């Protein structure tokens, strides 16, 4: 999905606030307005939209989701926005990472200990065992059976030189940028108008307005 372009959003805002040099130009000709301020307003809006996406169930956030570095048993998760989307576990040294299954902390403790091989003749990090691949996430701490775990989390860092979000959100970025420009003299009515539109758009994301994919329903068991 194409990434939104900062220069296009800035040009659109320039047009709306009447500071343009030429039509759809990012250059600010009116010295009452500051180009850097407009740029930062846009990137700050992107940050807010990203947080909304990260904290809601929305497939549009995939662009900023990434697997963490390898985590050890009992390790606290790295800082991130929103929820942990997925957990994958390396079952044995040198093995590939596979999706983990959630279970209780008690199970994890018992299966890691595997006292007298009660649960499997093989330990939880041995190739072929049934004990590996389970995890528990409590209080931002991961416990698991297997060799290593990774969590899929939001790793967004604002970049004031380029946008990172999909161009699906261009309209929202314009509204968000406009809503923050009262401080550089944009008329209140104009700011308020776009602020309302911006908040409405963010609200839709927060409410999980995206349609449920058909495949989800198709995969549901009929029993």
């Amino acid at each position, binding site marked *: 999905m194409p990434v939104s372009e900062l220069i296009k959003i800035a040009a659109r805002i320039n047009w709306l606030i009447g500071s343009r040099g030429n039509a759809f130009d990012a250059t600010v000709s009116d010295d009452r307005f500051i180009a850097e301020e407009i740029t930062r307003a846009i990137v700050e809006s992107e940050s807010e939209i990203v947080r909304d996406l990260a904290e809601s169930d929305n497939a549009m956030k995939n662009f900023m989701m990434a697997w963490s570095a390898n985590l050890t048993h009992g390790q606290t998760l790295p800082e991130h926005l929103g929820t942990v989307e997925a957990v994958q576990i390396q079952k044995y040294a040198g093995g590939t990472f596979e999706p983990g*299954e959630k*279970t209780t902390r008690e*199970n994890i403790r018992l*299966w890691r200990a595997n006292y007298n091989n*009660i*649960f*499997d*003749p093989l330990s939880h990090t041995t190739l*072929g065992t*049934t*004990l590996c691949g*389970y995890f528990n996430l409590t209080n931002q701490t991961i416990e698991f059976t297997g060799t290593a775990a990774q969590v899929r989390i939001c790793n967004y860092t604002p970049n004031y030189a380029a946008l990172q979000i999909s161009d699906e959100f261009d309209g929202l970025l314009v509204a968000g940028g406009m809503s923050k420009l009262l401080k550089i003299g944009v008329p209140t009515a104009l700011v308020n108008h776009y602020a309302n539109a911006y908040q409405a758009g963010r609200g839709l994301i927060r409410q999980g307005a995206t349609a449920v994919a058909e495949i989800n329903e198709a995969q549901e068991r009929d*029993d």
Partner: protein
Amino acid sequence: MPFDSREIAIRVRAFLAESSPALAGLPIPRIAAMLPPALESYLRSLYNDGNKRQQLMKKVTATAVNGEVDLTPLLDGATTRIFLPDIRRVTVFLASTKKPFTWVGNREQLDFARIGSNESPAIFLDGAILYTRNNADGLTDSLNEAVFFTVAVFPATFAAIPVSLQMDFLAYAVDFIKEKFALVKGVI
């Protein structure tokens, strides 16, 4: 591939998932932990099932030391487990000559001279010890060689379950685990 706890647990899980949605998420290790008691319970059910016992019949060899065959290792063996009363119902043979032992009514009779110039060895079961009288002489403690007999050998491990009974055990294990969970969770 051996019939092991992993295969059984996976198959049992499939059965459980189909029988009750509440049990669909039961993890494999928890099922595996319940299989040894299920096997023990299954063995007890086999003791009284004549038809299934037929499929467990095996030749068992034991060794007499100073005229005594200690059967206790076979009662709780790691690979071979027999049901002691079965011994008394079958014939015990001397491995070297294939001569059958004659069961005598009490241990004292082993000291008596045997018919046919002592050609027929004698045997008496007392507790879990087989006491013998060799055919070679009149001493009860002279036999130091192997004897064999054919009885039902109950599987001590999952891999020892005969192929013809594997799915029977599977069905038993499913019911066993369902019953235990029904007591705890009331979900069946």
